[in-house]
């Protein structure tokens, strides 16, 4: 049965990277809570292969990334010279905060995020009074960062950031970007990553109307009904996304889990501040073409899903659902319906 097949495929596909690791995330948070914060230098991924991580192939990047990580480890001044965000991402809280359930630093407000540490080249060339660029794209639950890497060269003048809850995965993305910057001088200066819980702290990172695009690729499905509120697209969280998006800004999402696709579609359709992109707009949008192919999860779905997946065809992705919604307005006005594209 098709549906059953999809369901189990999805469960099976997502299990190694998402379900397990997300469940494990609690343990990981604990484990590292007293260890180092996100600014701490850590290269465990290079040293002790993570079974989950190994499962994922970054084909063109794999080798050079690992090599470079080792190099960096041996000679930390190299990365220092590129001003990588390892020193101080945030003005961290002066004292550890027992009232928060998070064990990573959370910026007090967007003004407290040291974006110059994330994008040193952009900020050094901006000059003292020069127009300071703001982050415009956010990849929520960026995983191993494949989308950011692709977007980086597609939109070289746009600052973009990944948000990822898992500590090691975030570290990995950081190292990956660092390596790419080193091996491709002048490139990949516009991408960075932070470790955070996007469901709680998006307003701490972005001002109202700051973002033009938000990506939610292959989000965790959370099948159990009681856990639906953990889904990263939900009616209430869309209110926050609408707040950080500029008018006309776009939410992109893709999933191979039919049930989740239906859920996200319903959420977006019912939200008065979002409207679907037309099919023409979807086809014309260069970002759409990356949705199914650029991330590690997408590649995995392609590998395992075989016949149902047609790589490189963007919205003709027949193994699942692509949704894109544009923010209609900031000031309340009349309600508009969302149409959806199903491959």
């Amino acid at each position: 049965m098709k549906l059953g097949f999809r369901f189990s495929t999805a469960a099976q596909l997502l299990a190694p990277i998402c379900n397990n690791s997300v469940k494990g995330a609690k343990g990981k948070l604990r484990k590292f809570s007293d260890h180092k914060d996100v600014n701490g230098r850590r290269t465990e991924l290079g040293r002790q292969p993570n079974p989950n991580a190994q499962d994922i192939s970054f084909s063109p990047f794999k080798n050079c990334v690992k090599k470079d990580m080792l190099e960096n480890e041996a000679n930390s001044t190299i990365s220092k010279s590129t001003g990588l965000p390892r020193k101080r991402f945030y003005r961290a809280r002066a004292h550890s905060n027992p009232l928060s359930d998070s064990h990573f630093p959370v910026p007090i407000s967007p003004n407290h995020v040291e974006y110059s540490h994330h994008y040193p080249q952009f900020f050094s060339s901006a000059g003292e009074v020069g127009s300071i660029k703001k982050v415009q794209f956010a990849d929520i639950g960026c995983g191993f960062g494949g989308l950011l890497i692709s977007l980086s060269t597609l939109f070289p003048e746009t600052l973009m950031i990944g948000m990822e809850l898992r500590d090691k995965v975030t570290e990995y993305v950081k190292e990956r970007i660092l390596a790419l910057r080193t091996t491709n001088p002048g490139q990949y200066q516009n991408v960075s990553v932070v470790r955070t819980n996007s469901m709680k702290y998006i307003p701490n990172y972005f001002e109202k109307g700051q973002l033009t695009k938000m990506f939610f690729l292959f989000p965790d499905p959370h099948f159990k009904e009681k856990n639906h509120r953990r889904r990263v697209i939900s009616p209430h969280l869309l209110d926050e996304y609408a707040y950080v998006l500029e008018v006309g800004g776009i939410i992109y999402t893709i999933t191979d889990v039919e049930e989740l696709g239906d859920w996200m579609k319903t959420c977006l359709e019912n939200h008065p501040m979002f409207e679907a992109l037309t099919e023409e707009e979807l086809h014309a949008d260069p970002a759409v073409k990356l949705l199914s192919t650029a991330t590690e999860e997408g590649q995995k779905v392609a590998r395992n899903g075989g016949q149902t997946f047609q790589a490189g065809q963007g919205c003709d992705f027949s193994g699942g659902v692509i949704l894109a919604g544009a923010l209609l307005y900031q000031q309340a006005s009349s309600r508009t319906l969302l149409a959806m594209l199903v491959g």
Partner: protein
Amino acid sequence: MEDAQPEGGENNRDVDVAPALISVHPTQDSVAVAVGSDLRVFDLRGNCGITLVDETGEAFHKDSIRAIRYGANGKLFVSAGDDKLVKIWSTDSWRCITSVCSEKRVSAIAISNDGLYVCFADKFGVVWVLDLHGLDGNETLVDKKAAPLLAHYCSIITSLEFSPDGRFIVSADRDFKIRVTVFPKKPLDGAHEIQSFCLGHTEFVSCLAFLCTAEYPQGFLVSGSGDSTVRLWDINSGTLLDTCEVGSQAGLVDYSGSELSCSTVTDLCTIPGGNVVAVAIQSLQGILLVSCDLSSQTLGAVKVVSNMGDNFIPTSLGCSSSAELLWTITGVSKLHGSDYNSLARVRVLSGFKKTVPGTTKHELTVLDDNEVPGEEKLLEKLQGSVTVEEEVFLAAAEAVKKSMCNLLIKKQYTTERREFRKRGRNDKKIKQ
């Protein structure tokens, strides 16, 4: 993934402890006090205690009341708390008009300025709205269902407040956030448009209040927090205008900040028209008065009113819109290991309308028990007895501190305990 589990620790006795609350009718027709599950109202006009009538299916509260409030026009009164019931009372008849069941424990309530909507926040961070259109003060309404209005993701909402012009609903949470949301024309469809986030507190936000004057009718927001500050905000932009370090102003904190946990702001009450905010602080005997200069948008500590009695650390503050008097209470439900079932002590401050001749300072006096409106009758009703032994105050303050921690501090479970709790949860089944 992390996920808040705010309803833990039911077996912990401290959780049952609830601080006493006080609320004053906008034109001072009556005063209400909640201690544990007990709601007590004194009629100041008629000079008598009121017997509440509750003929709804779930009569009276069964567990600690966590929020009480009068509507701006004084016709309604709402109470809610740990028994997951939101009760709406008519202040004419003091009958319970309706009891609405919440799915979770209720942590805060607000009533729209026109009295047509009641909003309440549950412990999972969801704010619900009840439509009171067609509500007749004398009939008992049935079948009122609340609709979700907005949500803070899995964070206990500690305070809810409508802006003075009614355009916004403001919600504060234990994750340091204050969210300002446009209150929509059709609230039952949800409030989706966020006006701003007021970010700057570095610990949980415990209380909110609005200051407004004739020159600034849209008002400014003030907030109190576990970071021992009171902050002044422009809610349109979310801009932090000023910060008052109340802990150090009240002499409670050294600058190393080591005593932070003791100077949590527990309640705020703006004195209408006077540009003064009364602040209750967890370890402060008495109250701190903070002045607000709205033209320069600054805060400054005025003074500590400390002559309210030994160990009198208020748990809640209230005043009417005429601001003749500031009503304060300290107290706690079910004091463990004491003969007292609950404790409540009311003290009243007067003089906010008077200034010391030749200065702008207020001539404040703490009223003696026989000067308090209603005198012994009122104290007997609201406190449960005319006299309260002062020895129990300290124990009460300690218990309140603990209960506040339990409410706001994320529980740190051991690994085994967490596994055990997981097994006990009923949300593990996969829906096929």
